[in-house]
């Protein structure tokens, strides 16, 4: 019996009308609804816990990366130009090389690269056409690889085009043309193909904005770039790219893009990487739609000023992780001002929180002086004091400044207006690294180590100041692919589905017309997960997260046992659950609810006590395939897996994938300084020899990392 009334009027009239269903039925329905909602909520709680695990491990990794990079910056600043350690890493800071663009053009020239007859991949002709790009998309769908010659050709053309684009793209959407906005893709080609399938390929009738983070983590970062650049070349007015925080060669060293390129292009990989470095620095920073909607990868801060942003020399910031070098003229308190990594730099933003744990790392010096440093004695605790002392001892002041002048490390232009450059740099970091928060204010983003957290009041103020109505950003994975916040004035869009694990989240993209109202289309790339029920997909993701967590616990074995022992003065081998939770957090610092997780991580407890010795023994993760006698080195290796790999790749300047035994030793020295721990020379030498698989004096980075990859033996699927 249908009534033509809306629901609310139906409910109003409930008392007077005769219910279609009897009262018991209403009560039954209420009960079932209540029961079901509880069930869903408890699943949601589990899903959220799982999410938090993945996210905290991810962000801890990012923070780790930045700490490492800051440490290198510190080495660069405080050790003599002659020290070998400095030389190992100085090239990553040599960002503003003096060669002119014409010289680079010659270096990147593809013309001498021959395409052999045996090549079965796609052949490209230039200028690029729509057919050409479609052919490329098709080829990548068939898992073909584009020849290095064509890669360099596309990249070269892209570089030339990007150089004439402004920092901020301005696009207009009219009545007949809707624009599509996509978020992070992270090398997941299946998602890009799914978007094109559902939404159509880019064209003048179908404009697109891609909001950064095209690369890293996924396996097809290069293919995504080539497709996006291809369309950019064909439709420069209709395809818009914003730079993300992963469009950064230093970040790429850690998160897989560098490895992907070197793996796919053994001969020309280095050139490709170098060209990509330039391209990334030339990517526009933001897009504005109809002067009303701002699209940027990370977000904003209270000091965001688009007028300033539109005037910066964006290509100077090859890596956004390190601020521009302030010349070493000032020896007083200003010393730390311009020369900090993002963690410190963010401190200058009005802070409502206390100093983070990230800071001490930067300011405290390595206790072990580095091998060839001519000033090798006990280092004091204050950076400034130490610097002054060394300068005094070595009479460095003048010589260092001169050395800087001729060293290609610093661009002479930087010397002119360090403050302005520091300010510019801050603007850019905030655009690429910031996250929104529910509370008012603007504080440094210490979880990631870069950018800031900004509140709804900042959104209102910045949008108001620029006469904008909506901020669209990406940068954070969202379960449903998108999420509003700040009274629907900020919209996060994330396009990499199953980002943490199969079934972890959907991806989404936005369609927007002249009315500037966003419409969402969601998807999930893997066919298997769509068929899973809620319960199954939560279970799957959960098992994966727990595996990742067990790995973290395993690599911190010794530290954990030490922490547990502090609560066990009588050496009973058991501690209370509360102490277990507290000690675990102290060691891992992931900010996770260990008490809640305990039941899933620790299978047996006796009367509320955890037998930690037994439990740690049972965390069975495989031992490496090699004999390494020194277990503490082993643990360091596991714990600092990513850091090690990053350092290796930095040291491997010719990107050959191989480093010498000497370089290997230097890597460990660097790492042990960074971690402030002692590792004996003998231990390192033994290690080096034991992993020299080919006994030819060089170590294959990939083989090395493979040998120490962790495999969870206890996992059951």
């Amino acid at each position, binding site marked *: 019996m249908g009534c033509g009334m809306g629901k609310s009027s139906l409910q109003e009239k409930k008392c007077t009308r005769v219910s279609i269903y009897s009262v018991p039925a209403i009560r039954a329905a209420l009960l079932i609804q209540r029961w079901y909602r509880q069930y869903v909520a408890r699943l949601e709680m589990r899903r959220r816990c799982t999410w938090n695990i993945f996210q905290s491990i991810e962000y801890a990794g990012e923070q780790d990366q930045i700490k490492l990079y800051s440490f290198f910056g510190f080495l660069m600043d405080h050790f003599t130009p002659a020290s070998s350690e400095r030389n190992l890493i100085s090239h990553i800071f040599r960002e503003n090389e003096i060669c002119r663009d014409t010289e680079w053009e010659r270096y990147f020239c593809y013309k001498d690269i021959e395409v052999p007859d045996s090549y079965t991949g796609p052949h490209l002709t230039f200028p690029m056409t729509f057919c050409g790009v479609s052919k490329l998309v098709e080829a990548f769908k068939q898992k073909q690889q584009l020849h290095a010659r064509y890669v360099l050709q596309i990249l070269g053309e892209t570089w030339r085009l990007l150089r004439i684009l402004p920092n901020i793209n301005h696009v207009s959407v009219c009545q007949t043309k809707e624009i599509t906005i996509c978020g992070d893709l992270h090398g997941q080609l299946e998602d890009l193909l799914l978007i094109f399938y559902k939404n159509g390929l880019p064209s003048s009738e179908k404009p697109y904005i891609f909001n950064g983070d095209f690369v890293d983590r996924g396996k097809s970062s290069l293919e995504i770039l080539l497709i996006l650049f291809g369309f950019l070349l064909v439709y420069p007015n209709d395809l818009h790219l914003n730079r993300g925080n992963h469009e950064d060669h230093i970040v790429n060293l850690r998160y897989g893009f560098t490895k992907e390129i070197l793996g796919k292009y053994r001969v020309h990989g280095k050139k490709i990487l170098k060209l990509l470095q330039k391209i990334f620095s030339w990517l526009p920073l933001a897009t504005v739609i109809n002067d009303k909607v701002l699209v940027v990868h990370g977000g904003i801060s209270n000091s965001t000023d688009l007028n300033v942003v539109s005037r910066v020399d964006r290509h100077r910031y090859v890596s956004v992780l390190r601020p521009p070098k302030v010349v070493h003229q000032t020896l007083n308190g200003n010393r730390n001002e311009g020369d900090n990594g993002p963690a410190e730099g963010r401190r200058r933003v009005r802070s409502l929180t206390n100093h983070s744990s990230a800071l001490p790392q930067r300011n405290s010096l390595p206790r072990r002086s580095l091998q060839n440093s001519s000033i090798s004695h006990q280092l004091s605790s204050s950076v400034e004091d130490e610097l002054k002392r060394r300068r005094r001892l070595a009479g460095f002041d003048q010589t260092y400044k001169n050395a800087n002048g001729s060293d290609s490390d610093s661009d002479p232009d930087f010397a002119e207006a360090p403050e302005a450059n520091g300010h510019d740099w801050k603007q850019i970091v905030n655009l690429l690294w910031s996250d929104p928060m529910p*509370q008012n204010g603007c504080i440094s983003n210490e979880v990631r180590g870069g950018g800031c957290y900004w509140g709804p009041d900042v959104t209102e103020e910045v949008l108001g100041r620029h006469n904008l109505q909506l901020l669209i950003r990406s940068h954070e994975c969202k379960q449903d692919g998108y999420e509003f916040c700040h009274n629907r004035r900020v919209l996060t869009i994330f396009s990499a589905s199953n980002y943490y694990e199969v079934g972890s989240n959907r991806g989404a993209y936005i369609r927007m017309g002249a009315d500037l109202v966003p419409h969402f289309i969601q998807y999930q790339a893997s066919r298997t997960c769509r068929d899973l029920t809620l*319960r199954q997909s939560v279970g799957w993701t959960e098992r994966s997260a727990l595996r990742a967590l067990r790995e973290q616990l395993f690599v911190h074995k010794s530290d954990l046992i030490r922490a547990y022992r502090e609560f066990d003065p009588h050496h009973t081998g058991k501690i209370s659950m509360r102490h277990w939770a507290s000690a675990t957090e102290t060691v891992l610092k992931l900010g996770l609810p260990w008490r809640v997780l305990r039941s899933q991580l620790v299978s047996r407890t006796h009367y509320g006590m955890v037998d930690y010795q037994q439990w740690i023994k049972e965390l069975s993760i495989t031992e490496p395939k090699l004999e390494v006698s020194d277990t503490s080195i082993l643990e360091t290796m596991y714990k600092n897996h990513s850091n090690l790999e990053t350092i290796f790749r930095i040291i491997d300047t010719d990107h050959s994938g191989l480093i010498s035994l000497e370089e290997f030793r230097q890597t460990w020295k660097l790492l042990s300084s960074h971690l402030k721990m002692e590792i004996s020379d003998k231990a390192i030498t033994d290690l080096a020899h034991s992993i020299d698989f080919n006994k030819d004096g060089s170590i294959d980075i990939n083989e090395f990392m493979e040998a120490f990859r962790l495999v969870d033996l206890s996992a059951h699927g």
Partner: protein
Amino acid sequence: MAETSETADIQRKIRAAFHVFDHKADNTVDVREVSTIIYSLGCFPTKADIHRFVDEVEEDNMGYVHLDKFLPVMTKVLLENKFPPIPEENLLQAFEVLDKERRGYMEPQELAKYMKSEGETFSQEEMNEMLTALVDEKKNLICYKELISQLTLDLDT
């Protein structure tokens, strides 16, 4: 109210659940997450119960809730067992009211009809999710008898 160990235990549980949603580690959660937290602590409130709870603890319509306000109210709820769980028999009876012939199963459309028009109605999205979760694919039926015990088991593992 004297701090018994039971209260202390309860408060620890509440804090742990609260912190799952405390993203900025400043003891606040988005108000929209409050219902999930309450449910996850083993309570079975109605939507009306939740609205009343939120009214008591929300920070002046700011969209978030602070732990300082949440903790005492939630502790009281747990100590007084204000929203007790639904015994399995009651649930079974409820289904049998809707399934008058007491077949032990219902067609998806039948249940959907009730859920969307009676009581604290489901949105279309909630309904779709429920159907995906509860419908036996092969038979295209909701075999509620089996489901009730199975789902309870699920959550406890």
